[in-house]
């Protein structure tokens, strides 16, 4: 297909999405459209905070049941290099572009290898970054893919509109009420588990000073007088779970 054909097809697909009023129908449309590029699996999901379960973040999926069972049972989202890169990237990328050290990170190697057993040997992921720190993604997998410089921009746009349609069908408001950045929510979540700024720095691979700055700005935004108060307010406004 030429670039113009990819463009027309993608824009027609996007226009057609509004017609679906149920999630299964919209997912069916996504499955058919991405299927034409060779994709066999789709997941539309939020990315979990340290205190959230991956399974609760999933908005919709077409995944082999056994793979989903394995992925959640082993908490693969904590070690998946694709998830890690997704948080840091605003650009879509192929799964194979997510770096990891096979020696140092056996978990990362395991999740990538096991995925191939479920016809997910290659993939493409489109990160979603919301206004108030909401992080999500549409991730597509398969074996024989039409994945190239011309098809990727089409997939990019189709995935973002697919995400939005599913999101609106499920719930018009995905964003948490407070306006904390993902990092601020992360440091508050760890602080609520009694971690010191130094420990949080070690966990998140940032300096103690940076961790303290995130804590201070989170406290300021929440209108808290100190760290303990910030944690209490964050729990009360359901930014983190107790």
């Amino acid at each position, binding site marked *: 297909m030429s670039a113009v054909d990819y463009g027309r097809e993608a824009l027609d697909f996007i226009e057609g999405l509004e017609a679906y009023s149920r999630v299964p129908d919209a997912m069916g449309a996504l499955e058919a459209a991405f299927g034409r590029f060779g994709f066999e699996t789709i997941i539309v999901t939020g990315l979990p905070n340290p205190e959230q379960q991956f399974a609760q973040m999933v908005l919709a999926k077409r995944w082999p049941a056994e793979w989903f069972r394995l992925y959640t049972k082993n908490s693969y989202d904590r070690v998946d290099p694709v998830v890690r890169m997704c948080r840091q990237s605003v650009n879509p990328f192929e799964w194979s572009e997510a770096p990891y050290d096979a020696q140092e990170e056996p978990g990362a190697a395991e999740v990538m290898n096991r995925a191939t057993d479920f016809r997910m040997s290659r993939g493409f992921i489109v990160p979603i970054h919301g*206004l108030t720190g909401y992080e999500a993604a549409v991730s597509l997998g398969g074996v024989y893919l039409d994945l190239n410089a011309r098809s990727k921009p089409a997939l990019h746009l189709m995935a973002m509109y697919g995400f939005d349609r599913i999101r609106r069908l499920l719930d018009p408001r995905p964003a948490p009420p407070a306006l904390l950045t993902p990092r601020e929510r992360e440091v508050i979540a760890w602080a609520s588990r009694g971690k010191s700024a130094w420990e949080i720095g070690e966990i998140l691979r940032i300096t103690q000073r940076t961790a303290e700055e995130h804590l201070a700005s989170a406290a300021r935004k929440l209108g808290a007088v100190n760290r303990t108060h910030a944690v209490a307010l964050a729990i009360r406004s359901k930014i983190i779970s107790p």
Partner: protein
Amino acid sequence: MIHAISAANRHLYEDVIEQHFCLRHEIFVEERKWETLRKPDGREIDSYDNEDTVYLLALEDRRVVGGHRLYPTTKPSMMSEVFPHLASVRGCPADPLVWEWSRYFVVRDRRDGVLNLQLMAAVQEFCLDQGIAQVSAIMETWWLPRFHEAGFVVTPLGLPALVEGAWTMAATIDIRKETVDALHDRVGTTTVVRQNGPRLDAVARANTCGLAAAQRKTA
């Protein structure tokens, strides 16, 4: 408050406009590295900054903390002159009721979300009040979900392409009362835009620009 500044009331805001040109240089050139916009005097001004531009600037006292601008598509626009390839499927709009929306920025210490919602509310509120039906935009694609989250109805005009290393797309955004109302609800006010001084009629102005362009063509 977000102030609407145009040729009609610019005399009340000369200091603010100057400050905003410098901020744009700081943000778009120094921070985001759009080197083609670099200017020796540190003021980022391009061909779409003129007597037909409308600036929507967020002021705290007299300090500019964020903003964006609108430009009639009845004149040659950034989309039609610089990025027409991004609108290759649906084409570039040229219509008095469609204004090009660009140079969206927020100063570093105000990027925590509230101001973003106010700025998004501002473009919708201002355009609704002026009878503008849509804004067109060249935008970084990663912003699309953020606009979606703000309730914007965004129609792509073509596929994204890399521009200075960032995936960028052309789109139109509908001006809708529901979108304005939902945003006002979220920011907790009934109005965010302030228009001091003589009132502008944006659509009439765009029509005049269109007429001038048509006359140039026939001449």
